[in-house]
């Protein structure tokens, strides 16, 4: 694994940790996890068309973000169904479209070599997501407490929700190379859930989640490299261990 690939994974993890904090607080842990599954048919289509799989995945994820947003605006109950049916269906269809080595890499992540365009897309997107969360954290907090209060202070709640979902979708796209469609959601959710348990305020939570996400990603990637195995399972296992340690520590 090259230094560039490792550095890129760290910027991705930073974005994942930060976006995860608000995903966890908005109780979209499961929704977020399932959302990442829609990337698979995107990868399948991209491979069939000989386009970079990342772009197929990103397009599908952004579309799924839009879909979740549109449904969420209407009713919450429908969203659960959509996630259960559509997103899992997407995983199944994607698995039919993608085969062999490509499928394993798409599902669990594999290091490989990072191309120049991918590097640039990765750094720019991670920077955009990080900037979004840090600059909008106040608006996100007010909206979390009460969307109606948020409206009275001039926050465009609908727009903020859409932006957040799309930032979430982009973060999933960023991490697909390392964690695959099955496990990327977990890198967003687990460090943030761990941080939620041990933090006393918002700044602590954001800091702890980002630091944990970067730590498990870098250490997990190095371990996977050493054992010549997919990266995702190492990263998420390590993240889960940290979560259980924090649960014990909290007791």
């Amino acid at each position: 694994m090259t230094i560039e690939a490792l550095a890129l994974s760290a910027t991705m993890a930073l974005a994942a940790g930060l976006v995860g904090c608000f995903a966890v607080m908005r109780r979209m842990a499961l929704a977020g996890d399932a959302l990442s599954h829609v990337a698979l048919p995107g990868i399948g289509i991209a491979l069939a068309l000989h386009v970079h799989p990342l772009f197929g995945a990103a397009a599908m994820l952004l579309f799924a973000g839009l879909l979740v947003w549109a449904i969420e605006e209407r009713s919450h109950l429908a969203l659960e169904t959509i996630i259960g049916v559509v997103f899992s269906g997407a995983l199944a269809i994607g698995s039919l479209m993608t085969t062999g080595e490509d499928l394993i890499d798409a599902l669990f992540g594999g290091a490989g070599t990072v191309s120049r365009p991918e590097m640039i897309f990765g750094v720019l997107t991670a920077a955009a997501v990080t900037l979004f969360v840090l600059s909008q954290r106040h608006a996100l907090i007010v909206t979390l407490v009460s969307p109606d209060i948020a409206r009275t202070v001039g926050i465009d709640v609908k727009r903020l929700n859409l932006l957040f979902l799309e930032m979430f979708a982009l973060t999933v796209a960023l991490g697909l190379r390392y964690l695959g469609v099955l496990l990327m959601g977990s890198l967003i959710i687990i460090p943030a859930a761990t941080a939620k348990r041990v933090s006393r305020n918002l700044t602590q939570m954001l800091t702890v989640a980002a630091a944990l996400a970067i730590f498990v990603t870098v250490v997990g990637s190095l371990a996977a490299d050493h054992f010549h195995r997919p990266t995702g399972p190492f990263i998420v296992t390590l993240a889960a261990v940290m979560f259980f340690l924090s649960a014990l520590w909290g007791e």
Partner: protein
Amino acid sequence: MTETNTILEVDRLSIRFGQATILKDVSFRVMRGESVAVIGPNGSGKTVLFRALIGAIPSEGGLKWAPGIRFGYVPQKVDLARDLPITGVDFLRAREASNRSADAAMTQALAAVGLTPALCRQAVGSLSGGQFQRLLIAFALMGEPDVLLLDEPTAGVDEPGQERLNELIQRLQSERRLTVFLISHDLSVVHQHASHVLCLSGGTAHFGEPTTILTPDLLHEVYGTPVAFHVHDH
């Protein structure tokens, strides 16, 4: 009674959710500095009216605020998990994120509602019902509102806490010349503090001074049962 003193003019306002009509042809006018109590049985559309007043839901008919009005809104129910690492300071700072004098404004608002800085550094989930209401009111005050809308601020708060909240609201109103809209089920408080009463029932509204609205006949008609409340005559 001059036109310029009118802060809100509601003219044949209707609110529909799909097929259901929640409010129909509701009209009233509120002057600056008045205190309007909104009463009515459960499901009569009080919260819906508030949400229409702040522009959170669409409505038909006339709804006109005086230009440049700033709202402070204190919702009834806040759907927030109790285990979040969000402190009162995190919440209040979010209000004044763009303002350089954020800390001064926060200190002032906390003093106004009687919350200590130490309480404010705790997670919001650990606050009591009354403390949380005070935090929401502090948030509303930080925007230096002209209008304060309070949706049952004393619901789920113990008796002494209710009294303190009612005193706080009254004090804020007189000190800051606020126009206050208060949803309440406590008719004796309404009778004592409100300058006007808006009584919603079955989609329609009665509006007037407490003495004309809080009559046994009207309350019987609205609530479907005789309603007694204690009147403090001083």
